[in-house]
């Protein structure tokens, strides 16, 4: 699976899971970094780190090391998961 550090710049991707150290992960979750949420990597700082991203209409900077802990997925996979979820709840 791909992670956010490998995501193409300027194109939407979707969060599959957020991993990593507990306090930082919790902070990301609270800011709405949750599975299924759209993220766009806007670019990278001139010195090669950190990344700048857009999520839920807000922009944040995180370092590549942390972006590597956020796994991403394609739109199709998200749709499949949503359909499965709907079926399960129905």
């Amino acid at each position, binding site marked *: 699976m791909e992670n956010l550090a490998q995501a193409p710049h300027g194109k939407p991707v979707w969060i599959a899971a957020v991993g990593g150290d507990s*306090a930082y992960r919790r902070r990301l979750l609270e800011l709405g970094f*949750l599975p299924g949420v759209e993220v766009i990597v806007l*670019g990278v700082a*001139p010195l090669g780190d950190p990344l700048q991203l857009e999520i*839920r209409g807000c922009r*944040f*900077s995180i370092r590549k090391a*942390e972006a590597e802990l956020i796994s991403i997925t394609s739109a199709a996979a998200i749709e499949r998961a949503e359909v499965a979820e709907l079926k399960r709840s129905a």
Partner: protein
Amino acid sequence: MTTPIVALAGNPNTGKTSVFNRLTGSSARVVNYPGVTVEREVGRIRLASGEVEVIDIPGAYSLTARSHEEQLAMRAVFGLDGERPNVIVIVVDATQLVRNLYIVAQLLEAGHCVVVGLNLMDAARAAGRAPDVARVQKALGVPVVALSARTGEGFDSLRATLAKVLAEPELGQNRLRFDYPAALEADLEELLPLVDAASPSEARALSLWSLLSLTEEDELTGISQALRTEVRALRKSAAAAGRDLDSEIIATRWRWLDGLRLAVQPAVRVVSMTERIDRFVLHPWLGTLLFVLVMSALFQALFSWSEPAIRATEHVFEWLGDAVRAYSPAGVLTDLIVDGVIGGVGSVLVFLPQILLLFFLLGFLEDCGYMSRVAFLVDRGMRAIGLHGRAFVPMLSGFACAVPAIMATRTLERRRDRLVTMLSLPLMSCSARLPVYTLVIAAMLPRDRHVLGFIPIQVAAMLFMYVFSTVTALSAAAIIGRTVLKGPRIPLLLEVPPYRLPRLPVVGRQMWLRAKSFLTEAGRVILLCTIVLWALLYFPRGPELSKVYSARIDAAPPERAAALQSELATERLRASYGARLGKGIEPVIAPLGFDWKIGVGLIGAFAAREVFISTLGVVYGIGQGDDANGRLLRDKIRAERRPDGPHRYSPLVGISLMIFFALSAQCMSTLAVLRRESGTLRWPLFLFTYMTALAWLASFTVYQVGTALGFG
């Protein structure tokens, strides 16, 4: 009846401060949280229902906390350090509504009485993404008021709503209760008896808070051991069962928020002004160029633009001193008032131009949104020395003066980052060291030698001092961060806010508050130290002078009288306690190549580094001050000989002295400000000890190795 309390909470970058200022007007004053140097503002306003107290709560994305600073917001909301707020106004950025609502959900869940202030409504309308106020109010079930702190829109309505909600608190409560997974509900049952709470919903909220906040490495205080133990046990068993506690809680809250469908998306995703500006500002080389330009301007401002104001301050106090002296009888009291008190107040006020200028520029850059970009641009470099990108500007300001630079570390959120920055930036070569280097280089280094054949040695020496100080300051930051202030590595999470026009009232207000706190708190210490130093170099006033000066001065023609005056000053200084101290420390500084005269200069330099020159001037009996005297002093120092012939102050002594000045914490104002900003005496003592030890060792090594190699 006690005065009701209205607390202002919300995410960072929502314009909460401007809302506070609009609401409280001029009634606000700054107070410190008990025991920590985190400031908060308090004001009183009159509503239809009567007088209320308005308090400002530190900006936070969530009540969940890891650090002590983050805990403050939560403790203030729950009234754990004082009185519980009657109403909480949550200031929300209307342009980024949904992200801001997480903390609203937390407060509603806790059963707090809440009023939502949708700030920046004018900007949201302009961007075509203004939320529908009635809909938001219906979804959240509590009063929502559209605000614009810039235009003043909605403040009458906010005041009216507050009066209504204070009279009828149920209006602001919605008794929100999330459906957490059954296993989590069972966990909460275990925690409920362990938290102190006023109501069942608050107990539930505090249990959830504990479950999310308490970890092995949190820095929270005032948590009972029983609660910690239980949370640890619950987290452990949850992990064993393959459950993800954080997700269970947070995702449930977000599912509710997302279900409200309050996100306002413009029909077409327009490229915002911010994005267009950032294409330039964050461009690999255009952005870097802009960064260099902005930072150079900031540095230039601190270094040279403040100079006329500093000069003017000095002149005013000199003039004031002369005026007082002219109209008072000569004597100890007049000297105390002129040299001790007036001089002391002058030595405090002389920092004001740089402080005002730095905080104006800092506030301006922060408010328009560029400061976050600075942190973004330099993060990679600052990380190498273990610091946050936001530490860059304070570090850079250290080249001008450590006093405003230490005050500028407030832009850093974590106390640890602030301390590391404050403890290393005094090594940056500040502008007060410059005149010392200039004198030493002119007086002790050879004039006609070159480095590499073409760089005059005096230029090379000056350049070397700047490089040397930068390297030592950066190394000190790296070392202190890994030893004395070792802490868990906190990953970067930096919000990049949209650009906004800086609000001059906000910037001006912050600037004024900073200046005021410097004058009233650090200023007092600096004044006291100035008087003590003055007394050291003034007393004793015994009669055992070599001649009766006063009669001779009266009798002598003017030009002779001036010479006699300075002769008298020299003799007095040489007999002072300060000089005795200088002679007393001679054995300690002799291995560095310094004699007692330099020792006295070093003691005098405590008032401010450049005072080294005037103190030395008096030691040599040529008065203090102007350029002609400066040259005279240089020649005197050059002319000093050892009994056996060679120069007393060889180039090696000069290098040793400059190294000493570069490294030592020879500045009481820095120590006073550090005490004020760190809240304890411990850190200024640490700074003084480590820098003095470093300075001594470095100068010792330079002088002794140099002597052994035959450069003495």
